[in-house]
């Protein structure tokens, strides 16, 4: 682990230089090859090394493994050892890879906007702190959520300086935390075990996207899998709109904004009556006016009774509200009551192994700090863009009053003032660190590559500060041991005393080595129930007049912290397909009323201000609700962050993301936003099937219908084996194939980002996207088939289907694409002349064409995968099941004369390994025992567009519908 090795990493530019110079013009000038001076251990040029570390893209604190090729991290994947994400990694996490290579990174420390040296900048910090102490001013720390040793060092040093530490997450579960305190007297939030719930009710929490972590995907996936637990969960949402999570719902009860809490209480009452509940909450339920609340919300009572029946009958789970939920805290309280009444507490809703919020503050605390800004001598800003994420100009004004701001930032941020001292701390991949975001799960972060810029970790800075101020010399009693010199040493000490001590390990060195290898140490704590102690019901808001505004986080830019990552904008937002911009969800009726056309903009106006944004006419949102996506439209946070969109937080009158009244008017035709999804539904075409839940096990699934769609095929052809003009291609050893379970797919887009990261896919930007040049190899098709109470939104990740009878192969005049022995539909980029005939002939529209040579701005090119060629103009490209990974796996097993076993294949591909709900399975069809072969035999499995007889290597497992309505397989055809 000696990080001295990593210092040498950059000395191998030559060998991996191929990646940056990669081109398909068959002329390579003489290149230099620069060998190591001293070879670092673990590094073999040309062979990837994986380092286990943590993900800091959001507060969930997942474990990741970073793929190091010749000294650069070129890929992030989930750490399979880590209990939180079980090997999956969400779109945010993978996108965070670009943070390290961002072209806007500061090259070194800066003082008042001028480049500076560490000695100079650091000296200024010290003197500022001394000045503050002498003048009796405060020292404050304002930053993101940190836990473990990373937090400890700050607390220790700032504490010793007599300062205050405030850690805050703009999207923290503040309401739920307050509610939990009120209902159970516990400071924390429950953890939701979705996998055991036969009925899932959400009151607005975007728990499959930005509210919580991959464990939700995992649980949801299992609860939807009939083979896993014998039932298929029903997913109900009570919400005025449909979020990225709730479009997956079977039933959508569209409650008026602000009435969700009422619905929850009414439901609680019904459930209580149903199952004769007589617990501590019963006293509260006596005087609930069910009909009144239901009427106020405007939802169907029959549905409520049906739902109550289900909840009483079997295990269920009620998720709280989300950011776009009005009166979020009341809703949270109500859902906890509902869970209590339904007997979920201790079963599906548990405490003990939940988010570690001890060190996390409420927004009130932040306000207090800002209010006191005039008395602050030194304010340490830890990567928190307080100005962008808070409404009004409070933060901006406050920061202006602070004597000296010391910002730990790698990139520009709106919160930097002219006088700020900027200390670049390096990214997650470059430093030591750790987290305990979830109680008992200690995740370790190790430097996986040499820092690209002149940076120092915040821990090291804190230690140096302590040193130069003479702290930790052991004089005052709390500081028994003197502080070590490096943060790495401090981290190890902290782990020794806080993790090693608690574990049953005996030998520290062994423990430490294994911790570094597995990416941390994870205690499995026993979860427990909690006692209900709520005295009075929360205030239930009724329907309110006017149009209500609600903000929701973007699935990748999150609260805006990832806005400077081109991938974050380039990935189509799953529900709308929008790229590059901010949009408002408005109802179809509203859109019609305003006479909006596709490329119009709308102006949103509230008491606080007004912004112009694009719009999405959503079939799932109420007329009296408007939802706006957050995380875009920065001012001075980097080239990509500033490029498009507007900041909806500017519309808020207070720090609650929903509740303000908004007026929508039509603006000019100037929107840059463009959707990558052609049509709202599948136009009555038999493309994406559903299976009725009651048909499961009866063989009525689409599996039996493979050949029976338009045009009907003459049986005699099949009998006489005349169906195909050409013989089946031979697959001696492998027939690589993929099965995608659409019933588990939650439309989180992680697979898309993984694909971009692995395959050097070009980022084309807003203008090219508007002209339909999006390069993503994986299209996440969204078919919005239903309406009203049954949205019936179907996902379909569509990539090259690797057909055995591929229409694209026959028509290529130069044989640049053909079917190979492994069943792959090969694409030889440098043979392609670009007739584009193949793409015309692909019924799945899975091929992408390089209309230009899309280049990478400086530093991004260091992230390119040297095993995948970068494509230049005039070349067709597409998914080849990541042939480079297959090739590598085959080579490794060939060393021992073996065939690649199924275990090594199922999650080999980046999309499969990233998938949180585990719906993508890859494997070898020639092996009858392989998982994918079994899935191919599943009654729900069907090939897309089977009637074209292309014999794809991809099969989809149809979504299971609980609906009684007869929509048919093709959605009404």
């Amino acid at each position, binding site marked *: 682990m000696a990080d001295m090795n990593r210092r040498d990493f950059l000395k191998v530019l030559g060998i991996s230089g191929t990646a940056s110079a990669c081109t*398909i013009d068959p002329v390579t000038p003489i290149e230099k*090859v620069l060998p190591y001076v*001293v070879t670092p251990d673990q590094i073999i040029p040309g062979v990837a090394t994986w380092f286990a570390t943590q993900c800091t893209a959001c507060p969930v604190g997942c474990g990741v493994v970073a793929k190091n090729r010749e000294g650069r991290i070129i890929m992030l994947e989930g750490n399979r050892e880590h209990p939180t994400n079980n090997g999956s990694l969400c779109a945010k996490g993978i996108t965070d890879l670009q943070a390290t290579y961002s072209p806007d990174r500061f090259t070194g420390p800066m003082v008042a906007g001028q480049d500076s040296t560490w000695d100079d900048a650091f000296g200024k910090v010290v003197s500022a702190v001394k000045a503050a102490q002498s003048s009796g001013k405060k020292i404050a720390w304002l930053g993101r959520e940190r836990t473990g040793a990373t937090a400890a060092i700050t607390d220790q040093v700032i504490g010793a300086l007599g300062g205050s530490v405030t850690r805050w997450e703009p999207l923290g579960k503040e309401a739920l935390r307050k509610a939990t305190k009120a209902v159970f007297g516990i400071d924390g939030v429950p953890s939701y075990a979705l996998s055991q719930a036969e009925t899932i009710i959400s009151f607005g929490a975007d728990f499959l996207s930005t509210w919580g972590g991959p464990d939700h995907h995992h649980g949801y996936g299992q609860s939807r899998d009939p083979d896993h637990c014998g039932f298929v969960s029903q997913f109900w949402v009570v919400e005025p709109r449909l979020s990225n999570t709730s479009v997956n719902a079977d039933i959508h009860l569209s409650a008026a904004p602000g009435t969700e809490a009422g619905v929850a209480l009414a439901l609680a009452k019904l459930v209580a009556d149903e199952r004769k509940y007589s617990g501590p909450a019963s006293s509260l339920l006596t005087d609930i006016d069910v009909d009144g609340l239901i009427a106020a919300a405007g939802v169907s009572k029959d549905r409520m009774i049906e739902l109550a029946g289900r909840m009483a009958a079997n295990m269920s789970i009620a998720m709280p509200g989300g950011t776009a939920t009005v009166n979020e805290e009341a809703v949270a309280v109500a859902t906890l009551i509902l869970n209590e009444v339904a007997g979920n507490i201790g079963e599906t809703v548990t405490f003990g192994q939940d988010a570690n919020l001890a060190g996390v503050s409420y927004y009130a605390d932040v306000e207090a700090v800002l209010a006191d800004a005039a008395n602050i001598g030194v304010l340490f800003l830890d990567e928190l863009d307080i100005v962008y994420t808070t409404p009004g100009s409070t933060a901006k004004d406050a920061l202006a009053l602070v004597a000296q701001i010391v910002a730990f930032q790698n990139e520009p941020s709106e919160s930097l003032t002219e006088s700020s001292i900027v200390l670049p701390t390096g990214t997650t991949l470059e430093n030591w660190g750790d987290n305990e975001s979830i109680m008992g799960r200690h995740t370790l972060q190790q430097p996986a590559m040499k820092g690209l810029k002149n940076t120092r970790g915040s821990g090291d800075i804190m230690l140096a500060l302590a040193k130069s101020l003479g702290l930790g010399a052991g004089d005052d009693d709390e500081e028994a041991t003197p502080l070590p010199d490096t943060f790495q040493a401090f981290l190890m000490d902290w782990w020794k005393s806080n993790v090693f001590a608690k574990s049953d390990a005996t030998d520290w060195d062994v423990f430490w080595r294994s911790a570094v290898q597995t990416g941390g140490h994870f205690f499995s704590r026993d979860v427990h129930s909690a006692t209900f102690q709520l005295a009075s019901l929360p205030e239930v808001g009724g329907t309110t007049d006017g149009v209500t505004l609600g903000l929701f986080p973007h699935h990748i830019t999150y609260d805006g912290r990832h806005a400077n990552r081109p991938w974050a904008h380039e990935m189509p937002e799953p529900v709308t397909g929008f790229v590059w911009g901010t949009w408002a969800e408005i109802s179809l009726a509203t859109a019609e009323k305003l006479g909006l056309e596709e490329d119009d903009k709308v102006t949103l106006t509230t008491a606080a201000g007004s912004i112009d944004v694009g719009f999405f006419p959503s079939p799932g949102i109420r007329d009296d609700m408007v939802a706006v996506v957050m995380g875009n439209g920065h001012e001075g946070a980097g080239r990509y962050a500033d490029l498009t969109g507007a900041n909806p937080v500017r519309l808020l009158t207070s720090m609650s993301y929903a509740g303000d009244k908004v007026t929508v008017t039509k603006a000019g035709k100037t929107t840059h936003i463009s959707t990558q999804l052609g049509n709202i539904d599948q136009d009555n075409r038999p493309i994406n099937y559903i299976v009725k839940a009651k048909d499961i096990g009866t063989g009525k699934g689409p599996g039996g219908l493979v050949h029976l769609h338009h045009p009907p095929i003459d049986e005699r052809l099949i009998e006489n084996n005349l169906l195909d003009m050409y013989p089946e291609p031979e697959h001696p*050893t492998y027939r690589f194939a993929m099965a995608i379970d659409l019933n588990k797919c939650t439309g989180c887009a992680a697979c898309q980002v993984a694909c971009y990261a692995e395959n050097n896919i070009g980022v084309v930007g807003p203008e090219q996207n508007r002209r339909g040049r999006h390069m993503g190899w994986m299209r996440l098709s969204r078919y919005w088939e239903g309406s009203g109470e049954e949205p019936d939104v179907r996902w379909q990740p569509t990539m090259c289907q690797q057909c055995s009878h591929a229409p694209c192969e026959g028509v290529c005049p130069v044989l640049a694409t053909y079917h*190979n022995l492994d069943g792959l539909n090969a694409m*030889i*980029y440098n043979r392609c002349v670009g007739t584009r005939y193949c793409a015309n002939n692909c019924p799945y529209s899975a091929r992408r064409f390089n209309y230009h040579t899309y280049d990478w701005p400086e530093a991004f090119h260091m992230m390119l995968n040297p095993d995948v060629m970068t494509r230049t103009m005039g070349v067709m490209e597409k998914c080849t099941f990541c042939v*480079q990974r297959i090739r590598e796996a085959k080579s490794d097993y*060939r060393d021992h004369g073996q065939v690649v076993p199924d275990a090594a294949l199922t999650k080999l591909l980046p999309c499969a390994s990233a998938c949180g709900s585990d719906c993508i399975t890859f494997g070898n069809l020639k092996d009858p025992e392989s998982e994918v072969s079994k899935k191919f035999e599943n009654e729900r499995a069907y090939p897309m567009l089977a009637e074209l007889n292309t014999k794809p290597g991809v099969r989809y497992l149809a979504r299971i519908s609980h609906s009684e309505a007869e929509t048919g397989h093709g959605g009404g055809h």
Partner: protein
Amino acid sequence: MRSQIIAAICFVALIAAGLTFGLIGGESHADESATEESSSFEIRDVIPAGPSGSDPSKDELFPLRPYALIPDLDGQVAYGEVEYAPLLEQPIEYSHKLHAGELQIACEYCHSQARRSIHAGVPETETCMNCHKVIPNEGRPELQKLTAFYESGDPIPWQKVHDLPDFVYFSHKRHVRGGVECTECHGNMAQEMTVAKRVNTLQMGWCLDCHKDHPKVDENYGASAALRRAELKDCLTCHK
């Protein structure tokens, strides 16, 4: 007769007009690029900027690379016909003949990755020093260069002698483990070369010659040799 003559003139005029008008737009930003980068004339300098107006190749967010109508070959190419293969000027005039030949040092002592990686690996300076620590370098300028490099801590900037285009996936590991001799591709370094020189075209046809019928295939695969040979002719075997 005038008509034919005029027709001929029209022809010439057409070519001229087409080209001049076609290239005209670039003048302005030819100057920019000249001031910004090397003053060396490149065709792209006189190509009008893309329809977006400004020069897409200088876009800070989404740069586009133009196609160089006249590819700059830097004079020489690291693969292709052997007679054009130059004897490259190396920072140290290292002699394979001496080390691999007279001193009988095995290839894989220095090129130690050949069995484990796609790259054979150019030895790190440390490896040279394993021996050269104890070998006196007085009056031996090449060795002094070596020690100088070692002490400076800078890598030795070798010139690539064998370099495949970037769209090719070539794995030393597979070939070495398959029992292909180093000399089959790199020539008889031990006897014939001081500084390495390319002795094969490294072109696709040349690769295929072996991939079609190399005796080792039958040796290693016996019964399934036919299948393996088929696999070896699959484009994806060598193309990224």
